[in-house]
């Protein structure tokens, strides 16, 4: 199975009983670089797919929580190279499929071909690049598809319907349906038209659709559940980690009772 198929299959398999498949985001090396492997293992035990955030100096799509985490991780010396080294050191490897979520520039600086090759060897299954719209993704796609890795496309509530189809067709791993018009960590809307939008995305996609941005309660998760194949939790988890709370307890608490 190719790495990108592993992501899709894991999400499909995770839908058992009332359980909602969960994609968990953490900023790599936050709050402590020396605890990274331990934190990652705990996240893997309580979620199905993990997004590792690569810190960037100018995170323009992120709210204050991830900005703060990103800044702190950079101060601790976290980089693409550091993250890959950490993953290479982990034995046994992390239990859940892993994606790197990064703004484009740190990936360009590493070199796209070298990155794709090393990432696959380190067990990474795909990438999410929030400032790389489909029209600009040619070079990135070329590098990572040759390694069988996923490039997850994001769709937003303001994406026109015909564009949604194009993005869903181009996406691999899963489709990232952004649930708010705005930055990460904002107040999530789950108004009726939001559910209609999610239904539209899902109808256009042949791979799982996961909803993210602003998700922080079991109540939200259960309302979204019939309309998506998984939910993504990011800022809320980073906040729990920032306060030293329990990763496992928090992630488990998001599952509908």
């Amino acid at each position, binding site marked *: 199975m190719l790495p990108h198929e592993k992501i899709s299959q894991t999400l499909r398999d995770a839908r058992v009983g009332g359980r909602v498949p969960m994609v968990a985001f953490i900023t790599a090396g936050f709050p402590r670089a020396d605890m990274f492997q331990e934190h990652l293992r705990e996240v893997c035990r309580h979620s199905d797919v993990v997004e590792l955030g690569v810190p960037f100096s100018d995170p323009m799509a992120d709210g204050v929580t991830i900005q703060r985490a990103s800044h702190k991780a950079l101060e601790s010396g976290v980089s693409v190279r550091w993250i890959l080294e950490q993953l290479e050191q982990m034995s046994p490897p992390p239990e859940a499929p892993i994606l790197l979520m990064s703004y484009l520039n740190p990936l360009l600086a590493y070199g796209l071909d070298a990155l794709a090759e090393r990432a696959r060897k380190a067990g990474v299954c795909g990438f999410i690049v929030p*400032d790389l719209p489909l029209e600009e993704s040619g070079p990135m796609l070329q590098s990572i598809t040759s390694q069988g890795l996923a490039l997850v496309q994001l769709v937003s509530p303001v994406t026109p319907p015909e564009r949604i189809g194009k993005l869903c067709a181009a996406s691999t791993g899963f489709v990232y349906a952004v649930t708010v018009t705005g930055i990460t960590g904002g107040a999530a809307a789950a108004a009726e038209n939001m559910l209609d939008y999610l239904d539209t995305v899902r109808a256009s996609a042949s791979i799982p659709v996961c909803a993210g941005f602003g998700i922080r309660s079991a109540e939200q998760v259960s309302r979204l559940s019939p309309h998506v194949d998984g939910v993504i939790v990011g800022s809320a988890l980073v906040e729990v980690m920032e306060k030293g709370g329990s990763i496992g307890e928090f992630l488990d608490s998001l599952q509908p009772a």
Partner: protein
Amino acid sequence: MPVELIETPQNEDLLRRLIDGSLPDQFGRYGMFGGRFVPETLVPALERLEQGMREHMDTEDFREELRGQLHNWVGRPTPLSPAPRLGDAWGAEVWLKREDLAHTGAHKINNSIGQALLAKRLGVKRIVAETGAGQHGVASAAACARLGLPCRVYMGEIDIERQAPNVDRMRRLGTEVFTVTTGDRTLRAAIDEAIRDWVSDPKDTYYLLGSAIGPHPYPLLVQRLQAVIGEEARAQMLAVTGELPDIAVACVGGGSNAIGLFHPLLGDRSIQLLGIEAGGRGNALGEHSATLSHGTPGVLHGNYSMLLQDANGQVQETHSVSAGLDYPGVGPEHALLKTIGRVQYGVIGDDEALDALNECCRLEGILPALESAHALAGARRWARENPGKRILIGMSGRGDKDMPTLRTLPI
């Protein structure tokens, strides 16, 4: 001195396409530079803006309205002043294109009023803008007041402290000034924050970007609105002297005033073009903001251009005595113009710029902005190497705003 165009067929072709308007291409590319690297949420907004430019900017109605505002409110055309005493001192014939005499004190107003007119036609409900030194913020505040549009300006905490008079000006003009306490708390963080605001309401909010940077179509939009500088200067030079200058010199931060002066002169191959970046305190990363001279290619604020970054692709802090040049990126058209050799780019440090500022004050009775002083110093250096030439300098703004900084520096 001949223009040092690197004459490969490929570079010739890129220059020809830049001049005839077929660059940027449909993807917003200037050769390898430019593009549109933004979150998906902003893609429809940028497509609407691009379509709006096509629908409105070339109509006689829009052009008439813009011409009227530029003439009756901005005070255009701005004069082309001979600078005979500077000329004597340098051994050259010196002409200054006086954007410092435009309303609100700098070239920024050309762009702000133009984009505000466009925004109004697009039917948006509010404007957001970023500012570093405060000049683009003041220009946008004034343009929004003029057209009755609500405006919010993002400004870094550090810039708010060092540019207090401009903060007060913006507030009096009815604009809400929002203090940015994240990131580097200067221009770069203000742009990040303005983009975050815009992402949250891309339908009803218009982002009035102040420099020739950002995702397509902003670099093109800003170039078109600032081209009035070069078009006027070219016509004025011909009217007064009957000839074109040997060289045109402008300072480059993001590069809006320089692209405004240079773009209309690109086809005049006899005119050498020289952009001057801020050398700050030295050549080490973090000590300057000379992006084209010391940077490497990368993506920041929505476009692929040259960038001051470390080996991991993290954008670096910059320094210049001039807040308007203190930016780690540069517009994609400049990156192309450097690559193909049509424009040369030099570096002037804080001290040399300050010395040129003082000289211009003493000899011509003009207080230039610290930004423009970099162009003066670059022109002076060139004049000494190339005696007896006719030099056109883009005087991008006036230095009144710099008095808090200048008070701490020698006369």
